């Protein structure tokens, strides 16, 4: 077994599904049954009408992630599952910060700090201002630390969304799925391009 398959790290699981009530639960229990915590979960419509896309982040070994993905793909309404390390995806999380407007007005440095961290004001009211920033976890975390001394009132962060670097989307694949006799493409698996590795223990 290679080193990467025994090492725990963050994996981004991308799931293409039908838009079906109850499917979120069906997918979630695949993790909870094995007592695996979901670090982040985002679900939204994909680039294709009627197809939904889940982005799930967990910290596990590749071996476990591969088995989980097969169990997810086995569900009737799941079309396709991919998993990637953070290096293989472009990912972002969005965060909102509520800070007292008075403090920002008083302390020019705060505005400078916000700019330096790529934040922008979404709402400015007499009593408070809401800033937004998008980035990796460390970046949004960093801004919390910066704002804390200035009376950060409220903070919220979104789930992660991730785009797969090496992907040409799902449109062509979907047409393949819709055929009565789907071609090999639909059944692709991680062995496919690793023929030479298959024949060794």
């Amino acid at each position, binding site marked *: 077994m290679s080193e990467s398959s025994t090492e725990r790290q963050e994996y981004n699981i991308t799931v293409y*599904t*039908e838009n079906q*009530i*109850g499917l979120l*639960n*069906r997918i979630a*229990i695949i993790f909870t*049954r094995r007592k695996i915590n979901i670090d982040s979960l985002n679900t939204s419509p994909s680039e294709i009408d009627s197809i939904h896309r889940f982005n799930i982040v967990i910290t596990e070994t590749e071996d476990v992630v*591969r*088995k989980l993905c*097969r*169990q997810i*793909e*086995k569900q*009737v*309404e*799941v*079309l396709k599952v991919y998993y990637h390390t953070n290096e293989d995806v472009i990912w972002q999380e969005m965060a909102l910060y509520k800070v007292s407007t008075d403090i920002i007005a008083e302390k020019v440095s705060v505005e400078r700090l916000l700019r330096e961290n790529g934040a922008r004001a979404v709402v400015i009211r007499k009593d408070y201002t809401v800033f937004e920033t998008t980035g990796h976890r460390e970046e949004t975390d960093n801004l919390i630390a910066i704002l804390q001394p200035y009376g950060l009132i409220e903070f919220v962060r979104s789930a992660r969304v991730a785009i797969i670097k090496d992907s040409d989307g799902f449109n062509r694949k*979907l047409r393949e*799925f*819709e055929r*009565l006799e*789907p*071609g*090999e493409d*639909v*059944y692709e*698996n991680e*062995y496919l391009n690793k*023929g030479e590795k*298959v*024949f*060794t*223990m």
Partner: protein
Amino acid sequence: MEVAQQEITTEAEKKETVNVSGSVALLEALIIEGVTTIFGYPGGAIMPIYDALYDYNEKLQHILVRHEQGGIHAGQGYARTSGKVGVVFATSGPGATNLITGLADAQIDSTPLVCITGQVFAHLLGTDAFQETDVINITTPVTKWNYQVTDATEIPEVIAKAFYIAKSGRPGPVLIDITKNAQIQKFDFEGYVKCNHIRSYKPKPVVRHQYIEQAAELINKAKKPFILFGQGVILGSAEQEFKTFIEKSGIPAAWTVLGAGAIPTDHPLNVGMLGMHGNYGPNVLTNECDVLIAIGMRFDDRVTGRLDKYAKQAQVIHLDIDPAEIDKNVKTTVPVWGDCKETLPLLTALVEEKRHTEWLALFNDYTRKEVEAVIHDELNPTEGEMTMGEVIKQLNDLTHGEAIIVTDVGQHQMVACRYAKLNKTRSNVTSGGLGTMGFALPAAIGAKFGAQDRTVVAIIGDGGFQMTLQELGTIMQSGINVKIIILNNRFLGMVRQWQELFNERRYSFVDIQSPNFVTVASAYGIAGKSIDQREDLPGALKEMLDHPASFLLEVMVTKENNVFPMVPQGCSVSEIRLK
């Protein structure tokens, strides 16, 4: 109603519609799917379906069970012996929750079922209405697919999907929850179209010839190849393809509990049972073979014992229809994804014709050791109390392996699986994965409905029988002919065996008392007999089999007999104990 029934079964293309209720549409759909028998129990939320069923008495036989768990186990027994989808009706709330054990059992043993549950009116969902339970969420982990219907127009398509999903690919249970308003609602039914494709569902992986070739190459080079086969062979109706494969390649083959009967017990290449209470040779030699060929089996922990000491020396070829099973427990050298009905003939074509005489002789050596140490005394005792094994042996002598054997869970199950002679496929019905006590009696009822021309013998322990004995009422009312053997050791025997071996004989709550089973049977109008003397056994078994109706035979067996061989939990298969 009569007119409606004629018209709606016509072809879909005509687009002539007929105004029917959701309940009628459901029953029409079942008929087109080939359903003839339904196991069920009515209740408030499924009353409109039962009202419609009143008019379908001639086309759909409904068996009234005594408990919904009995209903679903009967559906499982029916599916296992007939190869068809078992259909079960239950009402909402408690009716539906009583199905859970059977769903879990069918899920882990890949049994095709379609369960229809009634549900409260759609406008009452989530209000804690009378007999309302969140059936969809409760059953999600134990179903292959489930769906809640709240509008009658969905029924034809959903039922078509349900049957397609239940029986295709790796089969499994499907539950359809139908709210009462959808059962009552009238709609324009355009006719029923069977489902044969769902875009997100891939029942069969594409067969990859490169892996077939690699597998054949490994097999042809192997000096000590060994086949493990499971229920996949039976579910794929690939018994003949499997037999051809082993006969050409000459490879010894051992079975999992659910694979029993896929080839006859007496086949010269059938070397016996795998696993915790399996045969000596197959367990020990798993750790000596050079190529392990697993066909339609999933490397359950009861088969593998300790995984890190399991067949480490062997190259592993795994044939399975479910991609999630490949590499799940045992790392595969060559994965042969696909339906074994397709893959086995491809493999047979590429393997060389061989006889592994010496290697096969090694299995026979181990068999001889096992016969001397265990089997001879178990099957042919001459003094003391009767053993479970001798009952099975004498039964074999009378049925000649032609009967369907249904077993419950525990010592009697392991003994029956080890010693029952099975000539035909679909002859072994047992709860393998879930180990559900109480399974056998209702499953035997379903098994008989699924194979009415065959003798069905249920072998049950005194504990398991008391879990579902109310189904004697189903036997009484339906008039079905099921033979029941209770092997009574006055203990919860398997737990007692473990307590003896691993808990210093601290027999904690395994001493179970039983009623007079013969009297209980007679209260249901079922003939019976209880014996405790060896000389009465052949006559009593013959009387049971010759009796024109159901018959209960209680055999008092030794109290503290242990099932051996045994691979203790946490041990390697090669550490199997003969005593």
